[in-house]
C-alpha cells in the first residue's frame, strides 16, 4: 500500500491535459486472474442500467434548459420542445431581478475560495503536523478528529447559529465561511495521506541540511502531498458549493445567498400566492450551477482518484 501511494505521489507532474472520460488509466491493473479477461456482456448491461440511471436526470436538465416555460410545461421531458431557447434562458437567468443570479454566483465563489480554500490549507498543515510529529496528547486528538468526522455539519448548524447570533455575525458572509473552514474529514484524509506519502527519512535529511521546519514543509512535504491536497480541495469545494442548510439558516438577506439557497427561493416563489412561476429560470439556473463543478471534476480526475484511493487504504 505504501508503495502504491509513494508511486502515486509524482503523478501531479503528469499533465492532466487529456481530460475526457476516456483517458487511459496509468498502471491499469491487468485482469484479476487471467491476462485477458473475456468481456462480459451481462455485466456491461447491468452497469449500463446504472449508468442510464445516473445520467438520465442530467440529460433531462440539459434538454429542459433549452425550453421556454410553455414548452417545459407542455412537452415531453426527453424531447426537444418547439423552441430552442437555451441562450435566451441563460440570458434571462443572468439578468432576472437585476442580475441577482450573478450576485449569488459570486457569493458562492467567495464562500468556496475562502471557505474551502482555507479548510484545505488547514487540513493539509494539520494533517502533515499530525502525521509527522510526535507529541503528547496525539491519541486524544486522533479520537477527537474521528469523533468530529462522525458529527455531521447539520447537527452543529443550529447550535452554531445560536452562537453566532449572540456574537451578531449572522446574515454576514462570515457566518457561512467560518464553519466551512473546518473539515474533519479533510484533516483525516490528509493525515492518512501524509503518513504514507511523505517518507520521514526525507524530512530528516532536509533537517540535517539545515532547512527550517517551515521550509521543509513548503519545499519538501507539500509537493509530495499534492494529490491528497487536490482531493481535499475538491471535496471541500463540493461541500461548500453544495451547502444548503448552513446558508439557509445563517442568511436572511438574499444579497448574500449562495446559488443553492437562491435557486430554492426561486422555486418556492411559484408556490407562494401571487408569485410568478419561473421554472425555466430554475432549470437553467440549476444547469449553470452544476456545470462548473462537473468540469472541475473531469479536469482533475487523475488527482482526486489517486487521493481518494489513499484515503481508503488506511483501514
Amino acid at each position, binding site marked *: 500500500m505504501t508503495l502504491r501511494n509513494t508511486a502515486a505521489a509524482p503523478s501531479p507532474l503528469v499533465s492532466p491535459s487529456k481530460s475526457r472520460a476516456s483517458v487511459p488509466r496509468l498502471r491499469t491493473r491487468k485482469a*484479476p486472474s487471467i491476462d485477458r479477461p473475456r468481456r*462480459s456482456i451481462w455485466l456491461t448491461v447491468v452497469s449500463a442500467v446504472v449508468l442510464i440511471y445516473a445520467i438520465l436526470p*442530467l440529460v433531462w436538465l440539459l434538454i429542459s434548459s433549452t425550453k421556454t416555460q410553455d414548452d417545459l410545461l*407542455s412537452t415531453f421531458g426527453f424531447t426537444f420542445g418547439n423552441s430552442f431557447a437555451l441562450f435566451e434562458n441563460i440570458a434571462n437567468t443572468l439578468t432576472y431581478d437585476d442580475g441577482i443570479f450573478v450576485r449569488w454566483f459570486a457569493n458562492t465563489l467567495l464562500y468556496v475560495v475562502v471557505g474551502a480554500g482555507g479548510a484545505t490549507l488547514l487540513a493539509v498543515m494539520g494533517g502533515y503536523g499530525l502525521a509527522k510529529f510526535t507529541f503528547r496528547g496525539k491519541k486524544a486528538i486522533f479520537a477527537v478528529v474521528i469523533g468530529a468526522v462522525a458529527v455531521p455539519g447539520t447537527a452543529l448548524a443550529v447550535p452554531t447559529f445560536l452562537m453566532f447570533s449572540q456574537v451578531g455575525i449572522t446574515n454576514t458572509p462570515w457566518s457561512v465561511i467560518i464553519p466551512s473552514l473546518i473539515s474533519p474529514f479533510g484533516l483525516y484524509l490528509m493525515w492518512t495521506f501524509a503518513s504514507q506519502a511523505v517518507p520521514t527519512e526525507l524530512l530528516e535529511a532536509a533537517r540535517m541540511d539545515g532547512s527550517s521546519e517551515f521550509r521543509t514543509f513548503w519545499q519538501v512535504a507539500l509537493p509530495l502531498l499534492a494529490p491528497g491536497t487536490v482531493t481535499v480541495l475538491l471535496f471541500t469545494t463540493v461541500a461548500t458549493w453544495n451547502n*444548503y442548510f448552513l446558508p439557509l439558516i445563517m442568511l436572511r438577506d438574499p444579497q448574500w445567498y449562495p446559488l443553492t439557497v437562491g435557486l430554492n427561493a426561486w422555486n418556492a416563489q411559484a408556490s407562494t400566492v401571487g408569485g410568478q412561476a419561473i421554472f425555466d429560470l430554475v432549470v437553467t439556473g440549476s444547469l449553470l450551477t452544476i456545470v462548473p463543478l462537473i468540469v472541475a471534476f473531469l479536469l482533475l480526475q487523475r488527482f482526486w482518484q489517486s487521493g481518494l484511493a489513499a484515503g481508503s487504504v488506511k483501514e
Partner: protein
Amino acid sequence: MLVFAVVFIAPIVYSLYISLFRAQLVGDTQFVGFDNYVQAFTDAQFWSGVGRVSLFLVIQVPIMLGIAMVVALAIDSARLYGKDFLRIAVFMPYAVPAVVAALMWGFMYGPRFGLVGYVNDFFGWSLPNLLTPEWILLAIGNIVTWSFVGYNMLIFYSSLRTIPTSLYEAAELDGASQSHIIRHIKLPAIRGSIAVATIFSVIGSFQLFNEPSILQSIAPNAISTYFTPNLYAYNLSFSGQQYNYAAAVAIIMGVITMVVAYVVQLRGIRKDES
C-alpha cells in the same frame, strides 16, 4: 507545526463544546434544566421523525451500497466495455448539489410537467404520484441513492484496486471461481471501506434535511414540518422561535447519530478481528 495542529484542533473541540453547552446556557436564562430534553423524549412528532429516518435508513442504505458494490466489482473485474466512462459518469451526480438534485427529480416526479404523468399517458400505466404522503419517502430515497451511489462506488473501487494481484493469481491456481474470489478475497479485503461507507450513509440518513426541505415547496401536502428530526429542529427554531427546544432536539439527534455510527464501527471492527 505542533502549534499548528493544536490551533487547528481547537476550533473543532471548541465548536463541539459550545454546541453542546449552548442549549443549556440558553436554558439557563430561564433555568429549565433538562426540561427540554424531557419534552423531546415524550414528543410524538420528534419520534415520528426519528422513526421515519430509521425506516429510510434500513431500506435506502442497503440498496444504495448494494448497487455501489455491484458496479465497483463490475468495473474492477475488467470485464466491461467502457469502464472509464462508466466510472466517471456514475460518479457525476455526486457533484450535483442536493438542491438541484431535489429540484430535478421533483420536477420529473411532478404530475404537472413531470415524466410520471407522461409515462402514464403514453403506456396507459397508472404509476403512483410519488409526491403524495404514501410515496414521498420512496421519492426521497431515490434522490439520495442517485446522488451517492457513485461516491460510494468510487470508495469501494479505490479500495478494491489496492488488493495485490498476486492474491488473485494464487486463488486462480487453487481453482477458485470468480464468485469465490469475490466472497473470500475481495469483500473481506475492503471491509474497512464498507464500514466507512456505511457509517457515512447512516449519518446522512439521520441528518436528512435538504431533500425533504426542498421538496416541501413542490409537495407541500406530503411533507410535514416534523418530517425528519432535522427539519423539525429547523422549523422549531425558525418558524416557532423555540430555539432552546430546537437545540435540544438537534443535540439528541446528534447523539443518536453518533451512537449508531459508533455501533456500526464496532461491528465493523469486530468482524475484522474474527
